[in-house]
């Protein structure tokens, strides 16, 4: 029962808010009404999730009703509550409630206030469906729901063409991955679906899938995960998605939606348990993605885009971790959710305080603003993995896990990326709070934003204790301490370099060398994609339109049409003369033919 309320309340909230928003001009609703209504759904869901999380001990499979039943094909709407989905659901509702509250301050006075909360509630509902789904098809419904909401929210400021383009980009790139997901789902169903398509029966029957087929299904699902989690090669949408309002960036593109890819791979662990080589390939891709995004982030200038690349980089860590310890990946997912939400919301506070300035080289000397300074400091320390912040434990678990499982290449990349992370994060931090650049005059930041940032700061500090809820494999304490010291050392090297370069920086832009300008242009990947996929398809279409269609097909079709027309004209000129006896003649002729036919047949 609780699970029904948990899932339904955000949808009800979204629908109500949507209708009220449509009627806002007629009935003069106040912003407070929208805020109250928008807040109620996540709070109800949070309470339900909390009760379920702390109350439920055994995995529970709740079936609500039969959704599709055609012959043997039968899909139920149902929810699966085990420790994984409950922890994830609790985490999502918790973050969502905080970010909803933050948004009240951030979106204050905007025309689309009600619409924003309707979308946010809808997003929360879709995310919960994704997390709690009892079978892959229902998960796919949630999966597409969050995709649609992210499209709506990225393009929230739809007056600007660039924002709409960014929304489209996110949507289309995600469709590429979804193709893989859908193909995987269909293949999985054809393989073992007739024995039951929910996770419980699938995990029992997973060993019946032939090895090659399992490999194909695994690759298809990974394809979907790569798009949703913004990994190479389908990552290009994430930096552009920063066009949306900052709470969106925090909720969707850092804490919940992009982690859905990792969650999905963990959810299908029964499938991947036998596909070690595939996961290792994915780990390599993830590690390389982490490094790649880190390199781009070192030269980015937009505060939110730096955070976007760091998200991509941290998600790469999670994918890398899936090969040796899914639990460690989930651990990093949760801690990352806390401090990335904090970083984004802190950045949002900075942006609001500075009149929507997003270029970090045009900020500076903000350390006197304590309410901006400390959240960002905590978040930055957490993502850099400085003891005792949350990121330290989870990142260390991943790096040490890579080392102990013998993936030295991945270990090396991850360790180096950890240093790189602290470099670019502290580059941002020092530029914003210490550099000698003159920032614009500082605004007052609304209370709700400060409040949420403070809470999240606490969680960034203490989030490591999520480990209590995960049964992480413990290795030798000595090895853990050595690993911790090594990664801490790497982090401090990165921080030190950033300190040297940017502590007293005073230039409105960074001077760029040849390689650096390539990095600053994101390795021209967007341009390459544009050239390879967009331009080439466009040119092909133009060729088809102008040569194939206009020169060959259209004349051919017109020729046929004209021939028919000419014959038709000739025929009617002869036959349709209006004379009764000639019509009678046709009639007699037809009857004669018919009689002959009958005669011959008999």
């Amino acid at each position, binding site marked *: 029962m609780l699970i029904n309320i948990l899932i339904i309340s955000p949808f009800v909230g979204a629908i109500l808010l949507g209708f009220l928003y449509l009627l806002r001009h007629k009935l003069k609703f106040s912003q407070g009404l929208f805020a109250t209504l928008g807040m109620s759904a996540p709070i109800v869901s949070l309470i339900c999730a909390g009760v379920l999380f702390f109350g439920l001990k055994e995995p529970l499979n709740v079936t609500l009703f039969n959704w599709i039943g055609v012959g043997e094909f039968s899909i139920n709407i149902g929810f699966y509550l085990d420790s994984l989905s409950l922890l994830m659901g609790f985490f999502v509702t918790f973050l969502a409630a905080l970010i909803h509250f933050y948004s009240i301050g951030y979106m204050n006075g905007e025309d689309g206030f009600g619409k924003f909360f309707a979308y946010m509630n809808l997003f929360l509902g879709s995310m919960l469906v994704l997390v709690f789904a009892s079978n892959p098809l229902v998960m796919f419904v949630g999966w597409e729901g969050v995709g649609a909401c992210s499209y709506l929210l990225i393009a929230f400021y739809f007056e600007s063409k660039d924002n709409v383009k960014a929304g489209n980009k996110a949507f289309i790139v995600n469709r590429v991955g979804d193709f893989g997901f859908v193909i995987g789902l269909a293949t999985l169903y054809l393989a073992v679906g007739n024995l039951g398509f929910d996770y419980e029966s699938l995990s029992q029957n997973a060993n019946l899938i032939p090895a090659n087929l399992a490999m194909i299904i695994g690759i298809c699902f990974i394809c979907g995960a790569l798009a949703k989690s913004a990994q190479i090669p389908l990552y290009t949408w994430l930096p552009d998605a920063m066009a949306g309002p900052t709470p969106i960036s925090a909720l969707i593109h850092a804490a919940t939606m992009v982690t859905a890819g990792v969650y999905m791979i963990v959810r299908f662990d029964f499938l991947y348990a036998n596909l070690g080589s595939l996961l290792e390939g994915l780990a390599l891709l993830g590690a390389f993605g982490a490094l790649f995004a880190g390199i781009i982030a070192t030269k980015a200038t937009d505060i939110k885009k730096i955070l976007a690349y760091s998200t991509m980089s941290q998600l790469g860590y999670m994918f890398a971790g899936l090969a040796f310890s899914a639990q460690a990946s989930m651990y990093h997912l949760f801690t990352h959710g806390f401090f990335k939400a904090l970083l984004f919301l802190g950045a949002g506070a900075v942006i609001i305080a500075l009149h929507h300035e997003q270029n970090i080289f045009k900020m500076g000397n903000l350390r006197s603003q304590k309410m901006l300074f400390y959240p960002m400091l905590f978040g930055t320390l957490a993502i850099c993995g400085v003891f005792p912040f949350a990121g330290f434990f989870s990142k260390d678990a991943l790096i040490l896990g890579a080392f102990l499982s013998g993936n030295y290449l991945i270990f090396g990349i991850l360790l180096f990326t950890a240093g790189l992370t602290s470099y670019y994060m502290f580059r941002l931090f020092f530029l914003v709070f210490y550099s000698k650049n003159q920032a614009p005059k500082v605004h007052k930041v609304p209370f709700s934003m400060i409040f949420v940032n403070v809470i999240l700061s606490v969680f960034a500090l203490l989030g490591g204790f999520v480990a209590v809820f995960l049964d992480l494999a413990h290795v030798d304490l000595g090895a853990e301490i050595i690993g911790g010291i090594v990664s801490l050392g790497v982090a401090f090297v990165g921080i030190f370099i950033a300190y040297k370069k940017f502590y007293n920086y005073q230039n409105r832009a960074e001077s760029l060398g040849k390689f650096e300008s390539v990095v600053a242009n994101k390795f021209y990947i967007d341009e390459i994609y544009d050239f390879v996929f967009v331009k080439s398809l466009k040119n092909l279409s133009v060729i088809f339109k102008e040569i194939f269609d206009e020169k060959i097909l259209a004349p051919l079709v017109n020729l046929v049409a004209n021939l028919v027309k000419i014959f038709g004209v000739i025929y009617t000129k002869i036959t*349709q003369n*209006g*004379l009764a*006896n000639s019509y*009678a003649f046709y009639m007699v002729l037809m009857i004669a033919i018919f009689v002959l036919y009958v005669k011959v047949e008999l």
Partner: protein
Amino acid sequence: MLNLYLSVAIILFVIGVVGVLARKNIFSVFMSVELMINAAALVFASFARQNLSFDGHAAVMLIIALAAAEASFGLALIVLLYKQKSSLNIESFNELRDGNAN
């Protein structure tokens, strides 16, 4: 005997059809239609005789009544058409042709 009657009926009917198809004078066409009707009536009558049944005779009576009605109506129509065109040539009566179908 029956075959003879039927042969006469077929001959009458074919004369009627050819008359309808080939004659130009609207009166001849009209009379040819009457011939076809009479051929049909003859077939009914001969089968009625053959089967010793009165059903065919009833049909013949109906046909005669129909032919009478048709004759009065058709003649009136011809008079009207002649007033319009001052001609009895059937080829001048194609006013109902679909002018668009060209």
